[in-house]
């Protein structure tokens, strides 16, 4: 970059930035570029200067003013300040945060090169938010109503519960933002079934939040796609249970749902929006997981599987019968797809040296979840009621609920079953799943232990190869 083009730069609409000021610490700025999956952290003067560029939409006047007021110069301050800024812009461009051209092309979601191997950046962000008790993440379950009727769904059987109104949801989002909120996940039920969903998405288009959306996409129309393009979400997750339409539809109990989902996934990808095809694996669908992965590759979507079928949020244990119990196929999953993620493409976080001394889980560390009727939970997977919005403002709950202190003190070593466990390092625990299944966050279900033992064996056998 040279002086001649130091007039303005192009900041793409998929760039999201938020500055955090904490007493007695240098300011920290979190930047996401969603279409190209870039996350960055800037600190101190760098955070201040970038924020001035971002907030003035690529103009440099305020940034230069800051450098002139805070820098130390040896000769001509204006020339030196400009040089400092040019070098900074080069660094922003080399990291993919800004572009010298207005190019908003989507990157391939099946290209696994270049991932942040240790997830160090997002890890740093989340530790910063948790250490400073900043409500950074929020999940909102907009409705439990759904056009599909999946056999395994964890949402409560009674779907027609009271839902927060459009106005209350907008107030909630504003309150979240004012508390430092930056990452918002919208889910359901099926959120496109809400009559006001277009108003809500339109409201969010101007908020500067990093949005993640879960939808089966069956109800998607062109207006939704236009709104999604404006939102530039981090990802849109869509569950596909089988590459065979008939089998998928038998899970959703909604004839034609596979074809509708696939057709609309293609439209969303054509619009440049990152899509994650998610598969909850069940005892009768698990054998086709590689076909779903191949389908995701063909559609240029990211693929994610999960074995973790839980009881319904109301305690109904019926979905548990669908859990995969075939050790061989689970081992195959771990030694192929999972191992690939774990060791090569996107190394997953390794357990701490002494996993038993780590917290039981990170629920409520830097996020909350809101159910359709406004109940405030520490996590979407842990339906412990901390309050109810709007009667209880989230700020009050976040700063006054006794839950957070007591939860953060819990360690794996406090759980009798885990204390002596030899495979705890391979554990995929979810105290929320234990809570809905056993009514106790300290009582692991047998499935967690079953999976962990297979994972441990797979890990051992792989390392011996």
């Amino acid at each position: 970059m040279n002086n001649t083009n130091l007039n303005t730069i192009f900041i793409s609409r998929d760039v999201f930035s938020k500055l955090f000021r904490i007493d007695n610490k240098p300011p920290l700025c979190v930047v996401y570029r969603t279409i190209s999956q870039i996350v960055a952290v800037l600190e101190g003067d760098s955070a201040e200067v970038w924020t001035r560029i971002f907030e003035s939409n690529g103009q440099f006047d305020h940034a230069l003013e800051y450098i002139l007021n805070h820098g130390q110069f040896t000769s001509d301050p204006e020339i030196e300040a400009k040089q400092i800024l040019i070098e900074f812009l080069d660094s922003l461009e080399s990291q993919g945060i800004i572009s010298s051209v207005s190019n908003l092309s989507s990157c391939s979601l099946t290209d696994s090169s270049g991932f942040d191997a240790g997830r160090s950046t997002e890890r740093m962000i989340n530790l910063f938010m948790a250490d400073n008790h900043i409500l950074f993440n929020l999940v909102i379950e907009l409705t439990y109503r759904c056009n599909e009727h999946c056999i395994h769904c964890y949402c409560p059987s009674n779907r027609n519960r009271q839902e927060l109104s459009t106005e209350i949801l907008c107030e909630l989002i504003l309150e979240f933002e004012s508390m430092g909120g930056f990452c918002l996940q919208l889910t359901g039920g099926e959120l496109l079934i809400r009559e006001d969903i277009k108003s809500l998405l339109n409201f969010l288009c101007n908020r500067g939040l990093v949005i993640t959306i879960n939808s089966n996409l069956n109800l998607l129309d062109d207006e939704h796609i236009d709104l999604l393009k404006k939102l530039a979400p981090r990802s849109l997750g869509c569950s596909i249970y089988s590459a065979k339409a008939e089998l998928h539809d038998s899970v959703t109990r909604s004839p034609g749902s596979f074809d509708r989902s696939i057709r609309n996934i293609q439209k969303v990808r054509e619009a440049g929006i990152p899509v994650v095809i998610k598969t909850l694996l069940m005892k009768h669908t698990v054998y086709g997981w590689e076909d779903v992965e191949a389908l995701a590759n063909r559609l240029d979507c990211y693929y994610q599987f999960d074995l973790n079928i839980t009881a319904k949020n109301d305690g109904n244990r019926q979905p548990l019968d669908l859990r995969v119990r075939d050790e061989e196929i689970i081992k195959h999953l771990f030694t192929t797809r999972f191992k690939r993620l774990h060791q090569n493409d996107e190394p997953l976080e390794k357990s701490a040296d002494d996993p038993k001394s780590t917290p039981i889980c990170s629920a409520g560390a830097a996020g909350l979840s809101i159910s359709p009727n406004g109940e405030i939970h520490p996590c979407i997977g842990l339906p412990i009621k901390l309050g109810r919005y709007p009667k209880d403002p989230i700020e009050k709950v976040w700063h006054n609920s006794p839950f957070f202190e007591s939860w953060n003190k819990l360690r794996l070593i406090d759980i009798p079953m885990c204390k002596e466990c030899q495979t705890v390092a391979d554990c995929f625990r979810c105290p929320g799943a234990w809570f809905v299944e056993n009514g106790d966050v300290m009582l692991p279900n047998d499935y967690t232990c079953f999976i962990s033992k297979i994972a441990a064996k797979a890990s051992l056998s792989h390392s011996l190869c």
Partner: protein
Amino acid sequence: MKLEVKCAGKYTLAEPCGCLRMGEKSCPGTNKIK
């Protein structure tokens, strides 16, 4: 004054909530798939 990006990288879509507080591999709760 030296201005720089402290750290940056390509994030994975597998972890929408960034729930990495405890040094876990991933969080099945926040990643809950329906």
